């Protein structure tokens, strides 16, 4: 279970470029839940994910994962509990290293790494089995550098890597945004399969409302660093893309009203 309470994070604080990326964000995600996070650009959805992953330390608030307080834990220590897939397909794998080596690195996520050979025969056998489940024919190319693969293939492998050791939490950061629609569809299919089979607790940031509607059991909409809507259960099931679009429009209109009211007040009183 992931419990965020009263998280705050601002960047460039004290300067003219100050951005309040997270403002009083509280959120509880139950075990096995699959949550999609939607939001406009700069709404703080990726910041939320990075705060949980430990890319930076938050200014205020606490993050608890399965009863462990990870608020001040460095990124690499949180990796014991958290699996991640990045937006950029190049971020999740080491390009110059072979497919086998990349996967073998993931087989030791968060564990002690010693002086035994990374590609032992038992690991090789296990990862061949794993890669076979992708149906991409990659199991015969374990020696070739992962950098030669397409973005979709790399993203599929990253998914496999992040979920090899069952994580307490899987973080997906717009992991299909950089792919063409067809490949994105395949990666989403694989995501669903891996999450369902492993009953993984998942937090997925996406810009695609269709994905949010089709996947998962909860939708969270963020705007200006705050959680504005939270749909779950039956309510989530009833959500369709037009409903979400309408809500976005509403959020935007509220912004404009704020500004217009400010202008009106200015005219009146200043």
């Amino acid at each position, binding site marked *: 279970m992931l419990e965020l309470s009263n998280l705050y994070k601002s960047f460039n604080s004290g300067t003219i470029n100050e951005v309040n990326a997270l403002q009083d964000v509280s959120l509880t995600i139950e075990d096995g839940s699959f949550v999609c996070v939607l939001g406009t650009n700069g709404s703080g959805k990726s910041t939320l994910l990075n705060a949980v*992953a430990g890319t930076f330390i938050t200014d205020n608030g606490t993050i608890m994962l399965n009863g462990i307080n990870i608020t001040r834990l*460095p*990124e*690499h*220590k949180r*990796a*014991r509990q*958290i699996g*991640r897939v*990045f937006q950029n397909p*190049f*971020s*999740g*794998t*080491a*390009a*110059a*290293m072979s497919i086998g*080596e*990349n996967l*073998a*690195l*993931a087989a*030791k*996520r*968060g*564990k002690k*790494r*010693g*002086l*035994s*050979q*990374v*590609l032992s025969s038992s690991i090789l056998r296990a990862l061949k089995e794993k890669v076979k489940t992708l149906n991409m024919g990659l199991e015969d190319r374990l020696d070739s*550098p992962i950098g030669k693969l397409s973005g979709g293939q790399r993203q599929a492998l990253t998914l496999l*890597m*992040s979920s090899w050791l069952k994580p307490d939490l899987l973080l997906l950061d717009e992991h299909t945004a950089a792919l063409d629609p067809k490949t994105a569809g395949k990666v989403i299919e694989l995501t669903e399969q891996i999450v369902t089979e492993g009953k993984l607790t998942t937090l997925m940031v996406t810009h695609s409302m269709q994905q949010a509607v089709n996947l998962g059991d909860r939708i969270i909409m963020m705007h200006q660093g705050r959680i504005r809507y939270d749909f779950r259960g039956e309510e989530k099931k009833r959500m369709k893309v037009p409903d979400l679009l309408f809500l976005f429009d509403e959020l935007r209109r509220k912004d404009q009203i704020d500004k217009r009211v400010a202008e009106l007040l200015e005219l009146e009183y200043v």
Partner: protein
Amino acid sequence: MTLLIGSITIGLIMALLALGIFISFRIFDFPDITAEGSFTFGAAIAASLIVAGINPVAATALAFVGGMLAGAATGFIHTRFKINPLLSGILVMTALYSVNLHVMGKSNVPLLSQNTLFTWFEDFSNNISGKDAMVNLIGWSVPARDLWTLCFCLLIIIACSLLLLWFFRTNIGTAMRATGDNDQMIRALGVNTKVMIIAGVALSNGFIALSGSMLAQFQGFADVQMGIGMMVWGLASVIIGEALISENSLGMVIAGAVVGAVLFRLLVAIALRWGMNPNDLKLITAAFVFIALVLPGIMKKTKKIKLIH
């Protein structure tokens, strides 16, 4: 022929330097200029300890450890205080200059009448082949001890290369390679990249100091200036190795660095023999590395232009 064997021997000693530079530059993408200081540091440690009567093997091993400490200092300054890699290296290199003078007590320590690794090799040769024996090598008469020395150096460098190859295939070694390749990814897999960088730069400088300590014993003195230009020298060796070996499997890349170091030393020996002014050596080495770095890009551009027209 004697000259050739001597050059190859020095080339093999410099191959250790090339391995060190390979680790920092190629595996970690860390332009580590500490090399210039740690090369001399290794020589200084080994020379002073040998003069003090310590066993040469122990002295050489301690030189390796000293180099590792110097590298760890650079890695620590970089990761802990977020100082740019180049500047971290320059700081440690500059500090090492004073340290080296303190270790040696003066700017030059002669080793000619001392027991070094190489006098051991000579003794071994005298016992096996007889004193001052000459060996017929494809028509050339060469001193047996030079040949034995060469063989020992070859053995040492092969052992070091295999050790490195083994290490970079272990779980921890692979994590190090991944740190240089994609630190974001390996952090997400639970590896403390700061520790990896410190350990990697330490390992690199250990090899560089080892190279320095062996060169000092081979040439019979340690000098406080002997590290100058060594980083570029090592880089030149690595680049030659990469040009020779197009394959990028780990074993071949390591072998490439070793062969590159020997070849580069041979090229230098030939150039000096043809009458190149020794004072120009560093200028030409730098120019060579510059060209090797720039050439691939220019070739790509001209190819593109040809394709367009």
